[in-house]
């Protein structure tokens, strides 16, 4: 025999199942749309950069040095690895339009041939 409390818990559990199912469906739909947008972005991107890994010495200052002539970091310096997953930057493809040559056809003015 079911008590009043047991019936109330059963109703609450049923509502939870409906909410979870609805949430899953919504998440699946949003995921599908997101994947479709990612595919579109990938198709228009000019280059797909690989994952960029930067090894940063632990004692390195926060300011980055871009000078290539800077002294190499001592390999014994303890390093920490920072992995940056950079998303490709969508770029519009620029059409390569060549200017038309100024002379497409030029009829010969005269011709070389055996003496006559």
């Amino acid at each position, binding site marked *: 025999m079911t008590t009043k409390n047991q019936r109330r818990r059963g109703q609450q559990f049923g509502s939870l199942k409906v909410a979870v199912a609805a949430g899953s469906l919504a998440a699946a739909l949003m995921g599908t749309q997101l994947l479709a947008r990612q595919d579109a972005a990938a198709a228009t991107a000019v280059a797909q950069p690989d994952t960029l890994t930067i090894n940063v010495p632990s004692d390195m200052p926060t300011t980055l040095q871009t000078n290539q002539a800077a002294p190499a970091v001592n390999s014994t310096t303890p390093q920490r690895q920072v992995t940056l997953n950079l998303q490709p930057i969508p770029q519009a493809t620029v059409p390569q339009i060549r200017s038309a040559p100024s*002379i497409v056809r030029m009829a010969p003015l005269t011709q*070389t041939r055996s003496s006559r």
Partner: protein
Amino acid sequence: MSTTITCPSTTFRAMGCQIDLWLEADESSAAVAFEAVEKLFAENERILSRFSTTSELTQLNGRTGEWVPVSDLLWNVLEEALIWAAETNGLFDPTCLNALEAAGYVVSFEAMATAQFNGRHQAHHLLNGQWSSIQLDPAHQAVYLPYGLRIDLGGIAKGYTAQQAVDLMSPWGACLVNAGGDLVAGAAPSSLPGWPVGVAKPSEAGDPADNALSLWLENAALATSGVDYRRWTSNGRAAHHLIDPRTGLPAITDLVTATVWAAQATEAEVRATTSLIMGRHTSLDNLENQSHLAAVLFDTDGEMYQTSNLGNLVI
């Protein structure tokens, strides 16, 4: 977009062929230049023609075995001919006149249609290949032809004169000369990389010749030698005007025409002639090894061959 060149031009006959001139200048300047060039061709023909009994060359050919003082023009052209004879190991030979007449080329080609060859010139000793026995005395500008040796400066005289014509017209502007199928260009016309010219496919007498390809020509020459036009029958045998100095007979070759591009008209003329005599394989090898030359050859099967550097000139 199609472009055409519009500039003053003129046409006249000299040295047994049609001469065409183009000059990028105003009409009055062009008229002055054209008149000067026409006089140049007439004067050079008067000195260098082997068909005129009064030409200086004919006089020289008639005085073999003695020293003969010659004009600046005859001296310069003969000297250049001998330089090219040495350069080509005698394959270009200005001493082939006896052999040429023995083959039946005794009058100008225009007159040959009515001339009857009777073989009287075969009595000459051929003496081709004797170019190195000609002596030049620079101090007295005099020439010594060994007894019986006679010279013909036909093709090289025409090329030399066409080059002189370009040098003469160039101070007025960009110019182009067509001397019987041999082209010599000065500077390029305005806003073009050169003068657009065609290389004709071989053709019989009287037939219009289609162009096999078109080239830009600027400060250079394009000469064609061929056996497709100046040919005849002599004593029942087919003959043409290109003598092989090694045999003294019309060259037996697998080429019908040879067109050579060079910086100077005389070299283009000489290389075209010698290429035809050498035949396809030898001449192509020879031309490929000389990067300052480019060429188009047609063989007897109608096939076209060209040197690898010709592409730089093609329109």
